[in-house]
């Protein structure tokens, strides 16, 4: 029976994962951000140790500094606080393909031991048991971002020995295949789970449990993984969220909750744009 970190009086699983992700982000890094936990992690890091983090959302906002977290990838808040808003095709050409993204965040329904990801379908593609949303920006983030951070809860259904469908490339078959193929980016450098962090083995590229949260046993992580999870010789015990980290994250989430609770009213006789 898998047993991830539990919610307790000090902090929640989500908070531990978010703080762990935030700690990976060096100041000044250019991040290609997704909605949800990655967005929380990036903005937490920006408010703490990385004020010059550059956040790019695929909707077209570059250098955005949202005061509250977006609920969609294209919230107005992202546009209003951006250095510049550009057409989406240019995000993928001028920024991602051109090699200007340091860190790309990805999640998926399934991951395999080499960090390849499935966000397309469970079951046969032409007759799926579960049709997932699809690729989105993932294949090119996985290819071009200098490093990829994956954030996923671990279970035998999601951390699988064989993907139903490969949507995005990690280390392919491992053992240096990705590097040999000449990929511009280095692939997934950390997989942040609800048990701890997995990182690729420097030679085999296989994801190995290298860091573990307080109160979690490696055996629990192994039980939650669909492949025989290797554990690093020197397993690092991660520090719990600091009081500062928690306070900042909770304030961010509370600002977000208040902002998004405002009811929407549509003016059918619009005020002029300029007056808004």
């Amino acid at each position: 029976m898998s047993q991830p970190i539990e919610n307790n009086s000090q902090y929640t699983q989500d908070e531990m994962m978010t703080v762990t992700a935030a700690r990976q982000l060096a100041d000044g890094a250019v991040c290609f951000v997704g909605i949800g936990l990655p967005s929380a992690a990036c903005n937490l890091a920006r408010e703490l140790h990385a004020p010059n983090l550059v956040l790019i959302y695929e909707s077209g906002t570059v250098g955005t500094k949202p005061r509250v977290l977006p609920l969609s990838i294209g919230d107005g808040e992202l546009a209003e606080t951006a250095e510049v808003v550009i057409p989406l095709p240019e995000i993928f050409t001028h920024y991602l393909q051109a090699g200007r993204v340091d860190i790309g965040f990805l999640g998926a329904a399934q991951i395999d031991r080499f960090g390849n990801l499935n966000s397309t379908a469970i079951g046969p593609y032409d007759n799926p048991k579960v049709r997932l949303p699809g690729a989105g920006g993932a294949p090119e983030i996985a290819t071009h971002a200098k490093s990829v951070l994956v954030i996923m809860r671990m279970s035998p259904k999601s951390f699988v020995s064989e993907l139903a469908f490969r949507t995005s490339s990690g280390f392919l078959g491992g053992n240096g295949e990705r590097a040999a193929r000449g990929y511009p980016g280095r692939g997934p450098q950390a997989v942040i789970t609800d048990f701890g962090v997995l990182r690729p083995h420097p030679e085999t590229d296989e994801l190995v449990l290298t860091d573990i949260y307080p109160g979690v046993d490696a055996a629990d992580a192994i039980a939650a993984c669909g492949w025989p999870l290797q554990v690093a010789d020197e397993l690092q015990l991660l520090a719990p969220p600091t009081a500062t980290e928690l306070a900042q994250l909770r304030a961010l989430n509370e600002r977000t909750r208040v902002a998004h609770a405002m009811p929407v009213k549509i003016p059918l006789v619009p005020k002029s744009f300029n007056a808004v």
Partner: protein
Amino acid sequence: MATFVSLTSAIAELVRDGQTLALEGFTHLIPFAAGHEIIRQGRRDLHLVRMTPDLVYDQLIGMGCAGKLTFSWGGNPGVGSLHRLRDAVENAWPRPLALCEYSHAELAAAYSAGAAGLSSGLLQGFRDTDLYAANPDATREIACPFSGAPLTAVPAMRPDVTILHAQRADRDGNVLLRGITGAAREAALAALALLVTVEEQVDSLDADMNAIVLPSFLVDAIAIVPGGAYPSYTQGYYPRDNSFYQAWDSIARERESFLSWMNRHVIDSPDHSALLHKLGVAA
């Protein structure tokens, strides 16, 4: 030059059964009102194209308007699945839906090629994923004629009709888009015909010289539809109604609740204003 018409007559004149249709927008400026009018007018066998099919495509698909979907990410952003899209793909309800599936970068490149009058667009990259085999006609691998490196070519996407929502049009029919545009501009430039719904008509756009303006001569028809992007949003006019996106999850989960909602709110509403009043969001 763009002509100002009612949304009803714009859809009646421009949109035909069997056409390739792109209602673009990226969370922002999604042309919901136009999608609803297509449903009211009962179009069939449409090939729907969009990077991020969301609720309005779920509605079009669930109401049986579409025979094919070309897309790169189909979900309810921040909420979960599109249940009508899934029901069509998983169970062919209410009818089978053929898929042509790309990544964002690929579909953006296909629109960009269409916008540029190019027959194909290029991406740098590697074809180690399963999307290529699953969609064998959607891309080709070619070698860069200079470096020899493998490139992915995508055929230009040129919708018969692209439909956008935008902030406003001036009296000459020039249209201003402001804020997040996704691939809306490229889809507009790639289209054979272009319909835009706007929040309002103004004497002058009063836009910066480098703003995102679609000159009147690119636009076939403009319909003034205040709130036309609801429950999506229009920067500078009204915000996104996140609660509607959340509510949609349970409305659309079952066929019966979906049909009942659609009949009451879309089919039985003469226009978008009536729908906004029924939903209690008209100010």
